[in-house]
């Protein structure tokens, strides 16, 4: 115990280690926050996604903060619903049903147009469907007739897909044309207050328009952006942290502890026990690790627990055991072990209380350095599409981006960079601490 305390104090003397510790603490803080802020089950559901969950988000947009260094600001999403405070809703009785006039007003200051203008209608009726007219007023007073059409129980109107509107606007795509400044030659945004008037008519007594929401999908969203399924990447990025740490720490710790135990047991009992453990280890070393995992993932189960278990088992019986065994063989001959036998200590006691504590200081650096290795392993597997199918992990995000969304090809750099940077931070944090620990516990390295 004393050794550990001293070790820790020594650790603080290395600036690199302090940086590493801070990084690790940050990761832990994120993990703890995430677990409470977005409970596990919620996260899984969220990540499964679907239009209902993520419908309001734009598709594959970068995070909000990219606007900080952009000269031309990207717009955020604007959602206008009937229930908004500054939506003007008038209801007038009409021939058969009612006449609903909604006036939306919004201010638009961005330098680029929204992804799309979508109007989602929902209505209740029996036979005759209601009819809506939508008018768009620009800041400089022009009124543009957007559409006049009938709507059914649920209708989604997408301005981009409206060919008629496009023709009316002179052949320019509606998402651009609705915002374009007519005075300038090129297409640029007219900033100011816009008005949308939705004039809806129903033709039956109980026919009502229940929803007439306008969605102007922005080109930025949230802390981390969105993906092709409109999912807020925050869920994956945040939740990736505790998953990565859990996987890394469990694998690293489990492997180290059990390697040590098997090595000690083998060395102490000698004979066939030792031979058996060594042969198992040698076979295990020669097995192709990644290929085996891929096979298991493909044919058996991709659950993260299965993968973790197989990884740990294979890694326990690997080179580490041989290294520990070499050290234990030396320690076994120590006089204090002999003394323990002389006063009647049991074999178990000797292994766990006398042999193993002797080398735990050596374990600590490799424990710490092992964590990023397993984190990367999990990410690798996930990006090969062998990861756990439900968990939102960094590797999954990379896989989605790279293979699913063509992120690099299409220039959605944020999508790949965010998980990558976090992986790097994790690796860096543990590596810095691990190297410093190595120098403490292996004094000969101190001169380097």
């Amino acid at each position, binding site marked *: 115990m004393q050794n550990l305390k001293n070790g820790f104090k020594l650790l603080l003397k290395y600036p690199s280690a302090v940086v590493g510790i801070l990084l690790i603490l940050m990761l832990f803080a994120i993990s703890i926050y995430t677990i409470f802020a977005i409970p596990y089950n919620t996260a899984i559901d969220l990540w499964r996604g679907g239009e209902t969950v993520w419908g309001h988000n734009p598709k594959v947009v970068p995070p909000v903060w990219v606007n900080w260094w952009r000269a031309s600001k990207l717009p955020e999403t604007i959602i206008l619903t009937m229930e908004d405070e500054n939506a003007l809703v008038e209801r007038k009785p009409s021939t058969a049903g009612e006449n609903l006039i909604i006036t939306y007003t919004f201010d638009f200051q961005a330098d680029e147009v929204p992804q799309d203008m979508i109007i989602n209608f929902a209505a209740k009726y029996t036979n005759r469907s209601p009819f809506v007219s939508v008018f768009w007023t620009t800041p400089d007073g022009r009124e543009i007739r957007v559409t006049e059409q009938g709507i059914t129980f649920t209708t989604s109107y997408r301005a981009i897909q409206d060919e008629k509107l496009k023709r009316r606007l002179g052949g320019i795509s509606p998402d651009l044309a609705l915002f374009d400044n007519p005075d300038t030659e090129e297409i640029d945004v007219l900033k100011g207050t816009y008005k949308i008037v939705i004039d809806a008519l129903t033709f039956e007594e109980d026919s009502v328009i229940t929803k007439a929401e306008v969605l102007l999908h922005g080109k930025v969203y949230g802390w981390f952006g969105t993906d092709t399924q409109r999912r807020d990447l925050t869920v994956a990025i945040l939740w990736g942290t505790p998953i990565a740490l859990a996987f890394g720490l469990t694998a690293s710790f489990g492997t180290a502890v059990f390697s040590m135990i098997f090595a000690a047991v083998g060395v102490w009992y000698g004979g066939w026990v030792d031979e058996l453990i060594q042969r198992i280890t040698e076979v295990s070393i020669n097995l192709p690790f990644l290929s085996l995992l891929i096979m298991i993932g493909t044919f058996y189960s991709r659950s993260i627990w299965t993968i973790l278990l197989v990884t740990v088992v294979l890694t326990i019986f690997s080179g580490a055991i041989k290294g520990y065994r070499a050290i234990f063989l030396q320690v076994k001959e120590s006089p204090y072990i002999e003394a323990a036998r002389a006063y009647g200590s049991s074999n178990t006691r000797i292994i766990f209380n006398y042999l193993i504590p*002797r080398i735990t200081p050596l374990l600590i650096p490799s424990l710490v350095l092992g964590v990023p290795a397993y984190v990367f392993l999990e990410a690798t597997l996930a990006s090969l599409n062998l990861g756990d199918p439900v968990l939102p992990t960094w590797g999954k995000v990379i896989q989605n981006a790279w293979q699913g969304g063509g992120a690099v090809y299409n220039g959605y750099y944020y999508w790949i960079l965010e998980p990558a940077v976090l992986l790097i931070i994790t690796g860096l944090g543990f590596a810095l601490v691990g190297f410093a620990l190595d120098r403490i516990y292996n004094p000969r390295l101190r001169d380097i």
Partner: protein
Amino acid sequence: MKAKTETKTAIKPASNGKGAGDLLLSIKDLKVWFELRRFGFGHAGYVRAVDGVTFDLHQREAIAIVGESGCGKSSLMKTILGINIPTKGKITFEGKDINLYNKGDLQWYRSQVGYVQQDPFGSLAPFMTIQRILEEPLIVHGVKDSKERLRRVHKVMEEVKLTPQDEFMPKFPHQISGGQQQRVVIARAMILEPKLIVADEPVSMLDASVRVEILKLLRGLQETYNLAVIYITHDLSTVRYFSERIFVMYAGKLVEKAPMDKLLKNPRHPYTQALLAATSDPDAENATHYKDVPPGEPPSLVNPPKACRFHPRCPEFMDGLCNVQDPPEFMPEPDYHTLCWLYDPNLEATLAAVKQDQK
């Protein structure tokens, strides 16, 4: 400026005058052979570490086993401690044969024999505090009450003069000196209140000025607690302070067993004579002459010389006898046993008989 006068008295006999007590340990024709395996399978001979050792040890008695490296004294010691299993022969402790022990008996036996080792630092687990090191034997032997353990640790530390106890208990072995480490080793050997202490070169790794202190400590403990002590060493000059009887071991056998003063005054076996000749007291005269010692090295225990193990190096070698027949134990005087044909009372007859056989 006058020095305090130190009285130079003769050594008190190590068994505080009470004389030896009851028979404690009896070893008869003990053989400890280790099998040598070739490539892990085939049989390639035996290492005859202990090859026919017999002696008795009584309560309050201190004996010294003297021998060089490779003579088998470590294996003998480990067998007495219960770590090695005898191949042949009998060890009897307090009347009961050790081979007949069940597991519980063996544990009890281990608490009756304390072990003091050679390397003070290596004998102590470097990651345990002194307190923990001393408590371990108690824990192993089922002393569950931590207050009781603490009390016994305190007591034993007092006996070895590691005081104030509270200062030493939280320390680690590397924080105390060699002499203090060895005191801890002795304390650990004593903590189970044994009847017999086996001390393997207890002072050879300590500085000269500290050796005497530790030897005196051991002797004091022996007297106070009526312990039997087996003191194993290769340093003849220290046996005088420790033992009544000296056993000389060579190539797995005890070639000489005698009371200390008789052996030191008049050694019989040529090997014993060589050992004594090789041990010098500080005297400038030593530089002026060569030591009269036989050349060569102690023999391998796998293939020891035939018959008398010492014959290849012996200045008194008698061809035809020493290399043909194993000498039995002779007693040139009462209580003095030696394994050498020179002390055959019928030596001429024996030699004649051997010559007859050769013809």
